[in-house]
């Protein structure tokens, strides 16, 4: 009997090592911002909230943000929170922008809200953008009275096009889950191709184990 003990210890130690390795590999990411603009290589961005990989909380806020001819916005608030835990890990990011006018007034909205949530528990994991939305959105002067479906493309005459409620899932769905949502993603282009981009209301989160 006594000879079996070292083998049992080896299995136990090996199992604990695997568990420790698993715990050490757990991480979260979170990021949120109100506005980003890249106009012919000149970049501007409102304050960014970036979550540490071990969790915690970060914010990025400003009362107003403007890029001449491209975007005007007020009350930009970005928040990301999260925590790493063996039993339950999660990250959630929120971005909000009010009184938005962009691309020469081609797109306006009272409020733009982006929410990205990622989580896993003992048996399941997931990621989603539920809660994201627009309040009083106008595109090319036309009111949008229904919820905007994910990844809706609209043309902006003379400027390019926009992806509304853009959703980019990440992770393998087994050990990692993630989501990026950009509520307004304008791609500026001319006859030669893209010349810049503007993003309003961006939230990202991911978890891995």
């Amino acid at each position, binding site marked *: 009997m006594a000879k079996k003990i070292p083998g049992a210890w080896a299995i136990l130690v090996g199992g604990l090592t695997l568990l420790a390795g698993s715990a050490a590999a757990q991480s979260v990411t979170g990021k949120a911002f109100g506005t980003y603009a890249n106009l012919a290589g000149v970049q501007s961005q409102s304050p960014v909230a970036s979550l540490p990989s071990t*969790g*915690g909380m970060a914010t990025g806020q400003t009362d107003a943000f403007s890029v001449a001819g491209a975007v005007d916005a007020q009350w930009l608030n970005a928040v990301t*929170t999260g925590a790493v835990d063996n039993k339950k890990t999660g990250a959630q990011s929120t971005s909000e922008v009010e009184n938005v006018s962009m691309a020469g007034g081609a797109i306006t909205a009272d409020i733009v809200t982006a929410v990205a949530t990622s*989580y896993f528990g003992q048996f399941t994991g997931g990621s989603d953008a539920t809660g994201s939305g627009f309040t009083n959105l106008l595109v090319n002067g036309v009111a949008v009275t229904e919820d905007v479906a994910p990844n809706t493309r609209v043309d902006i005459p003379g400027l390019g096009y926009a992806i509304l409620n853009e959703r980019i899932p990440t992770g393998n769905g087994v050990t990692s889950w993630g989501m990026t949502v950009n509520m307004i993603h304008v791609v500026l282009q001319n006859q030669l191709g893209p010349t810049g981009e503007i993003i309003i209301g961006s939230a990202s989160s991911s978890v891995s184990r």
Partner: protein
Amino acid sequence: MNKARHLSLALGAIAAILVAVACQDAASPPGHITAGGSPPPKGGGGCANFRLTGGGRIDARDHNGFAKNTPESHDFATFGFQARPTSSCPPTDGSGNLEWQEHNPADFGGGFSFHGTVTFFTTTADETAGDSRCGRFGGFGRVKTRDGRTFDNVPFEVRHACDVDEPGVGNDHIAITIGVYSRHGILSGGNIQQHRLTGNN
């Protein structure tokens, strides 16, 4: 005689209520937030052996539904927080931060942003008392209204933040008081998670 007296008292009471309501309406808008109020109560909850993180959106003002309001509605709030008890309890001191954005123009200041610092953390003392999935915390913070005013040292209390299930939408719920403003309901976006007391985050 008695009937007449009772009628008189009833009319008097109604008149007093109407006057009180009229005075309140004249003196302060709905959801008026008084700066520098009394400290938030720490009592009523016990030592908690967990911490909470959360963030997302709440459209409801009750616990009966969680649907996102229609696209023309400004009546919703968003939030993010982390909160935990301090290492030794009692006392039920706590730490952390909370961000709350109220978008309803009918609320105080035409809507407001709130940043709070957590000073206490306990188990819950309201209708969720005894529910091990819920925590309670509060402290003080700053209100910035959409009409340009700022109020410091405003007390707040998250009466409960409950991690019911994953995902949080349609399951988790929160109830908050900031001054005399309040909102409570089930999440229409985001998540609330309860974690063990390990690490600093």
